[in-house]
């Protein structure tokens, strides 16, 4: 029994690291622009499909398509910001909420149109199989993906804290007007943050494609879970999102283990409601 429990904890951690990476992109966009990106999960889907097609058509392993996914999603994020999101930034709040829903429905159905709603899978990628460590099964693709998530998150964190551009992003997040007065081009910062936010799920998508089913609606649940994580971690907080992602992964897996797996997402959404009820600024926020 304890072995099974340990196994669940490990599984929870492995999915949690993935959640962290997805949520960091979302919290960055939210923090900087105060825009809720409902299309975030669909960006993830695009990343997964990119990796899938590069593998199926050109035999490029998902591990090596990470840079391509990152670059593609970065450009896509910037274009969506430039041509759609930036246009509603000064509009009514309702439009800001609804616009990314439109983008989400559009992107996911574009995928249905081109690639049908079928479930796909990458067969025999470089990363496959499991290790057995002290009686616990460790999926190799999930393990490598977790390491990738930690490295990427650390890189984002260092970028924000150490580089001039990163500091400008943080300054914009703290106080847009003051940042503008300090000579920061906040519109460019918005665009950059949106691009980075999308690029991060591009990386997550490439990793996920090695072990998860790939289909046009795959982003929906991931996107919604990411909102709970962002709330738990404190809106706009990168460190918060990272820790909360792992927590949510654990709670979801253990909740499914102790109660009923079909309720695991309901538990995640309960976390959101309870968090914003007790601490509207997020558990780890100020």
């Amino acid at each position: 029994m304890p072995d099974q429990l340990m196994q669940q904890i490990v599984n929870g951690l492995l999915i949690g690291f993935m959640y962290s990476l997805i949520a960091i992109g979302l919290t960055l966009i939210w923090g900087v622009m105060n825009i809720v990106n409902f299309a975030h999960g669909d960006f993830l889907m695009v990343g997964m499909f990119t990796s899938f097609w590069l593998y199926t058509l050109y035999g490029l392993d998902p591990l090596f398509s990470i840079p391509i996914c990152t670059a593609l999603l970065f450009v896509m994020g910037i274009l969506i910001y430039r041509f759609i999101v930036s246009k509603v930034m000064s509009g009514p709040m309702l439009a800001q909420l609804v616009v990314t829903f439109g983008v989400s429905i559009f992107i996911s159905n574009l995928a249905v149109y081109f690639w049908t709603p079928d479930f796909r899978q990458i067969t025999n990628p470089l990363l496959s199989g499991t290790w057995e460590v002290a009686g616990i099964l460790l999926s190799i693709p999930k393990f490598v993906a977790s390491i990738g998530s930690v490295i990427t998150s650390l890189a984002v964190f260092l970028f924000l804290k150490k580089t001039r551009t990163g500091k400008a992003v943080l300054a914009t997040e703290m106080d847009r007007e003051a940042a503008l007065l300090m000579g920061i081009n906040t519109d460019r910062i918005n665009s950059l943050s949106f691009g980075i936010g999308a690029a991060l799920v591009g990386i997550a998508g490439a990793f996920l494609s090695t072990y998860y089913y790939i289909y046009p609606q795959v982003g929906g649940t991931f996107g919604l879970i990411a909102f709970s994580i962002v709330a738990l971690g404190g809106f706009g907080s990168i460190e918060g999102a990272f820790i909360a992602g792992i927590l949510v992964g654990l709670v979801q897996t253990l909740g499914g283990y102790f109660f009923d797996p079909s309720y695991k997402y309901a538990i995640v959404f309960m976390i959101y409601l309870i968090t914003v009820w007790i601490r509207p600024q997020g558990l780890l926020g100020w």
Partner: protein
Amino acid sequence: MRNIPSRQFVSAGIALILLIVFPLVVTNTFYQHVMIIFFMFAVMGVAWNIMGGYAGMFSFGQVAFFGIGAYTSSFLLIAYHVNPWIGLVIGGLVAGLVAIAIGYPCSNLRGHYFAIASIAFGEIVKTLFNNWKLVGAAEGLSLPMLDSGFKNFMFHASKIPYYYTILAFLLISLIVCYLVSTSKMGYYFRAIKEGHDVAKVLGINVVRYRLFAIVISAFLTAMAGTFYAQYVLYIDPESVMLLPISVQIVLISMLGGAGSVMGPVIGAAILIPISEGTRVWLGHKGTGIDMLIYGFLITLISVYQPKGVWGLFSNLGRGTR
């Protein structure tokens, strides 16, 4: 300026007469169906508008109230042979109670936070119904065939009685919305929307009035839910609790003009024929092209007409300023 309201009433009267005559002239059942769905979404748009447009709580979880209404009346009918009309009232009350239960903890949430909380709420309710054996879990509920007639809220031969029933529901919702918007409560709602803290300082019991708005909205939406169940005679979580329905409701109100009594009706009149039409003409192949157009439309509206078309209409009515 005095004659403007009366002019509005005259045009509303003409529109109502046209709508009453419509099913007698247009006998094509598909067009009648589109009109019925249009009225149904207009009811929910008006209901959303009370909490979203007036009180500023942007709910993306209305589908939960819709589903609760549909499920309550259907379950009571199947299990206890409760008349659907009574089921409709009970469904509305249950939705109202759930609204209080969820609205109270959310009573300090604003903007995005409220919107996402409402999505979380909708998803939780959907998950519960998907697993709740008593109400059929994922298989849903099939309503028993009762004798056709107004008493049983079931009409087998023609869609026309459904048409008039939902048109009546729409009129009731519009009257409720009009009364709310012109009452003291309506002014409180707007005050809360404009400034949560200011309203509090002015002595408005913000929590109580926000709950009023949610409960009224939930009741009307649940009414539409019961109607839907009686109309299609089959419900499951995938048909009455899906997030896109909530988004559709928000969109209708936004497109029409949130915060005006007639706005959602205009929004539904534009959007429902488009979405039903593309679904029927393009959606049957399962290529997603109908939803593709829909998503594109949402984006377009948000960017170019975010304040709704009602503004255009009322400006035309007033002539040049």
